[in-house]
């Protein structure tokens, strides 16, 4: 009885469509687009209904305030897609902030030199995380919880409870400068962000390295056997995270004109929340940068709209928290709905292979093409 079942696929020529859905569906019906649509909806609603929201200052402040999150979210997205996490990013921001302050004030270095040194040390801090995760094989959650405390400790230890506030106005003004006219909504920090966004998008979505990142997230052993250098990829990503976080620290220091050890504490959770909201799977293997950028902006727009509406921070936190939970739930919910749908329409689907191999679980064949599930 088993023999014919096994040979059947060989005798009947199966035809698979390249994709289960037409291209417009694959582009539009994604979690990324859902977040972008939600962002647009919230933005439009707020523009029409919240006093002062349509003021160009709203967007200007929004970009200024979310710039560190936008920046760090780029490498964080790649790290989370590999199935790892980096909790130490905010501590690297603090460390870099303190270093810029000390190097400028005590060592007399100019701001660009101090910034470059801080970014280099940020990269080293990231490399330390990456080495422990990729080559020693420790879980990134544990490693970066440790370095979260370690780097923050060094930062606070270096400067104590004092703050360095003596920065040249030229540089502190630059951090808040606008592109184009004086009333423009777009601060100059968006330029380095745009450059990094393009670089990270090329890296993740249009390069073999990026395919490797996704593969590692789906199954790192399989990735290894297909020729992906798993350890080196992870190390590279942690180094990038360290360097970008340190750059965010330089921006942070100049933006507020104050280098303190406790700068940006708690920022890592805002970054991770935005990345997850943007449709990146915490289990790895799935995610895209346009969704993440929308996720960061969505949280920013909701916060500033609710602040302008006079809501307290607790209400804002509740709304964002609920949104995040719903967004994480939606992945499983959508998968479940789509599996139900496949079960019902299964045999009639145009791209379905003629005989369903295991009629009791038809969902597995179909859902795997739309939503990559992974233990």
């Amino acid at each position, binding site marked *: 009885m088993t023999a014919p079942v096994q040979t059947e696929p060989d005798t009947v020529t199966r035809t698979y469509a390249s994709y289960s859905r037409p291209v*417009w*569906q694959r582009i*539009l*019906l994604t979690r990324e*687009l*859902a977040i*972008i*649509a939600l*962002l*647009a*909806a919230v*933005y*439009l609603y707020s*523009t029409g209904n919240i*006093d*002062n929201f*349509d*003021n*160009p*200052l*709203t*967007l200007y*402040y929004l970009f200024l*305030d979310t710039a560190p999150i936008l920046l760090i979210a780029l490498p964080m997205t790649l790290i989370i897609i590999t199935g790892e996490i980096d909790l130490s990013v905010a501590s690297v921001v603090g460390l870099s902030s303190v270093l810029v302050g000390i190097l400028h004030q005590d060592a007399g270095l100019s701001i660009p030199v101090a910034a470059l040194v801080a970014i280099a040390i940020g990269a080293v801090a990231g490399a330390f995380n990456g080495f422990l995760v990729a080559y020693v094989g420790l879980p990134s959650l544990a490693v970066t919880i440790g370095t979260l405390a370690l780097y923050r400790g060094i930062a606070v230890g270096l400067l104590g409870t004092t*703050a360095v*506030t003596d920065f040249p106005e030229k540089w*502190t003004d630059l951090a*808040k400068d606008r592109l184009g006219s004086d*009333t*423009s*909504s777009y601060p100059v920090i968006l330029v380095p962000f745009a450059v990094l966004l393009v670089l990270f998008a090329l890296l993740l979505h249009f390069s073999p390295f990026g395919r490797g990142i996704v593969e590692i997230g789906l199954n790192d052993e399989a990735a290894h056997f297909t020729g992906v250098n798993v350890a080196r990829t992870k190390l590279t990503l942690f180094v990038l995270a360290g360097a970008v976080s340190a750059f965010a620290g330089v921006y*942070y220091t100049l933006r*507020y*004109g*104050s280098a*303190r050890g*406790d*700068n*940006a*504490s*708690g920022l890592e959770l805002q970054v991770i929340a935005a990345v997850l909201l943007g449709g990146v799977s915490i289990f790895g293997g799935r995610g895209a940068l346009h969704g993440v950028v929308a996720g960061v902006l969505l949280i920013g727009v909701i*916060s*500033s709209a609710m*602040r*302008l509406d*006079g809501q*307290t*921070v*607790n209400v804002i*936190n509740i709304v964002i928290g609920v949104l995040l939970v719903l967004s994480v739930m939606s992945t499983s919910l959508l998968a479940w709905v789509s599996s139900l*749908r496949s079960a019902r*329409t299964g045999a009639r689907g145009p791209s379905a292979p003629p005989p369903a191999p295991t009629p009791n679980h038809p969902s597995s064949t179909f859902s795997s093409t739309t939503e990559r599930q992974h233990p």
Partner: protein
Amino acid sequence: MKLNRRVSAFAALTLIAGLGLTACGDDGDSDDKGGGGGGDLSITFLPKNLGNPYFDTSDAGGKKAIEEFGGTYEEVGPDTGTPDAQVPFINTAAQQGVSALVVSANDKTAICDALNEASDAGVKIVTFDSDTDAECRDLYINQADAAGIAKVQVDMIAEQIGDEGEVAILSAAANATNQNEWIGLMEEDLAANHPNIKLVDTVYGDDDDQTSFDKTAALLQAHPDLKGIISPTTVGIAAAARYISTSDAKGKVMVTGLGTPNQMREFVEDGTVTAFALWNPGDLGYLAAYAAKALVDGDITGKEGDTFEAGDLGSYTVGPDATVLLGEPFVFNADNIGDFDF
């Protein structure tokens, strides 16, 4: 199914197109400045963080004042006291065009630019409790000055021990600037006005509960005739009171200094402590609200010598550096401690 997908896809497209269009539209009429608040008096309180009983008390004082003179009170704030966390709230207040912002700064520099931008937008800036750099605000409401703090503690201990006998000081860290300033002033005051009180020792508990507790024990052993301990730090006074309350010295050695009602409540109730001092945060917020109103109305500009009325608290004069002093520290005792929760 197909239709549903198409509809939702279309909706998504429309929204995206809408985003692009509105973004463009925004740039077009960007001259429209915020500040539509106008007319009535709106004062926003921005404490270091929300859910802090100290600021709940001070902001309630501000609310009371604003209700008295008929303005709009609002309290906003971050949930953590990180240096930059107040900036978005300051920006928001500037955009809303509130009349005045009353803020306790988490960082004296980090919020400066935001405050200056708000000031440019016509918002009057009053700091209270914790100041910013002087050029970033119109007025600072100072809760207490060193001379007042030193004097109230000497007066309390003198009254409690009958103006004669041995006393000691339990301080925080040996190099704490404010503590040392107060101790210096207390020594002068004791020498000049209380010749029968002898300051036998000054010990340092490093603002650590256990160290302060141990230092109290050591003080009592080293000075068997000790009649009073002054601890000008909230950690020290609570630790000293806890030690005394469980030792034989209870009732013989008086403890006083600077403390908060919630910390000291049980020791006041069990009689270990008869009185201690701090400022009244409620009055601080109340005064800050009246000062904000005076600035908005143009009664004062923050110049030294300007005077304004602050409701029940009476008349105040602006001192040097655009600072207003709340007044003498507030003495808490068994009669009034029940009124406070911070």
